[in-house]
């Protein structure tokens, strides 16, 4: 009987083994390269987003709005750190480049002079940006409010100023209505005259209640409390107060030098006290005290021959 069988020689075994190792290494390396490429693209997008936010900042204008479109669906992460002289604003983006599956976020870009009020993670392809200067009593910074094209807001009975601002700047994804029933399904209801909405605003007590937390606001921080998650809001308020404190010291030095040049103001001591006060702010609930001191400083500065700020 003729027995025919497949003979697996040592040569074949060797080739299969080494070939398998080479193919495995090649696939592993390709995966690594693709994931690095993805991370690189996301890191670059994060930095570019931070840079693109600069032109939105105001100079003499009271508000500015624009939008930023990414080439693909993107998640923008807002990380706020309150440590250091000014705290830090970190921005990272996560977007599927199509090279790899899964979310690989880019390395965060750090900015010390930006204050972004948004959810911890905002998703979408187009993002809407709205900036307003924050003054206490001098300009402290530009507040940047940021939301994605998948977030819809419904402002119910807002005050005239708020309504004028929203309609005047033509802010996208924000609807102004008279009754909650007129709000679209899935939109976040922001109520100014009633409670039990997603966001409850009280203009009298200057508070915003959201996610079972109460945030206090002054001036344009109202929008910050509406658009940002409570943790981000509280962190940004502390960062703003740190910058307010540094600016107060800067103005105190200026008052000193102007006094030496023959233009005394007697504001130096008050500015130093104000700097200390703002530096100690650990929650938005202290904002009303700061606003009171700030109004006092503003009145005194206004009466000066050579104004400090």
């Amino acid at each position, binding site marked *: 009987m003729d027995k025919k069988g497949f003979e697996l020689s040592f040569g074949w075994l060797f080739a299969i083994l080494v070939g398998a190792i080479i193919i495995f290494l090649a696939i592993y390396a390709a995966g690594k390269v693709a994931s690095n490429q993805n991370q690189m693209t996301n890191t670059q997008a994060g930095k570019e987003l931070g840079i693109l936010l600069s032109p939105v900042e105001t100079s003499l204008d009271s508000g500015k709005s624009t939008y930023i479109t990414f080439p693909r669906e993107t998640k923008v992460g807002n990380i706020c750190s309150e440590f250091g002289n000014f705290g830090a604003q970190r921005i990272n983006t996560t977007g599927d480049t199509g090279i790899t599956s899964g979310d690989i976020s880019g390395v965060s870009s750090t900015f010390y002079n930006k204050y972004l009020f948004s959810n911890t993670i905002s998703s979408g392809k187009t993002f809407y940006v709205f900036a307003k200067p924050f003054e206490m009593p001098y300009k402290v910074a530009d507040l940047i409010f940021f939301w994605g094209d998948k977030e819809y807001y419904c402002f119910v009975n807002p005050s005239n100023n708020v309504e004028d601002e929203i309609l005047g700047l033509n802010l996208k994804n924000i609807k102004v209505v008279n009754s909650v029933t007129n709000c679209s399904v899935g939109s976040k209801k922001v109520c100014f005259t009633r409670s039990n909405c997603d966001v409850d605003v009280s203009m009298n007590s200057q508070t915003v209640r959201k996610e079972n937390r109460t945030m206090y606001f002054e001036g344009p921080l109202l929008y910050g409390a509406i658009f940002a998650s409570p943790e981000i809001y509280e962190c940004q308020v502390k960062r703003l107060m740190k910058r307010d404190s540094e600016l107060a010291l800067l103005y105190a030095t200026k008052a000193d*030098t102007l006094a030496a040049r023959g233009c005394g103001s007697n504001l130096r001591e008050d500015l130093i006290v104000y700097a200390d006060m703002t530096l100690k702010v650990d929650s938005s609930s202290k904002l009303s005290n700061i606003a009171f001191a700030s109004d006092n400083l503003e009145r005194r500065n206004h009466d000066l021959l050579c104004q400090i700020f």
Partner: protein
Amino acid sequence: MICSVKYSKAQMKIQEMAFVLVAIMIFFALVAMIYFSISMNSLKQSAVDLRAQDAIETVRKLSSAPEFAFTSSSRSCASCIDLDKVMALRNRTDYQNFWNLERLVIEKVFPEDSGECTPATFPGCGKITLIDKSTKYTSQRAYVSLCYWVNYKEGYVKCELGVISAAGKQI
């Protein structure tokens, strides 16, 4: 004495295959090296471009930053820098990393003056260096008005032509 070693056909095949595999590995390693070198260069370039872009946007907006903007007057001025404030900013180390810049200098263009400003020489001086961390830089410039208080008679605000130059980190 001549020593001859005889290889079997199978041994020769294994050796051939091993050489081919080594050659393939070397080829892939070379391709990977070329790829990484090109990609590193392009990454380096895009990092430099991003920093330059950041510096351009920063310099464009710096005159309206609260630390620079001239606000102590009833007249509003979009690109006026308060030199009295900048002089106060000179010795503040807290601001060294605030704008992510390697170099930040404010120079007077007209009327021409020279020398670094100090409290003793101000305002009759040419430039104020706020940040100077590097000798290798590419500056971005923007023309601004430099305003300061002059104590003459009732006192007035004097503005001169200046330039603000900023440079991001180089790699």
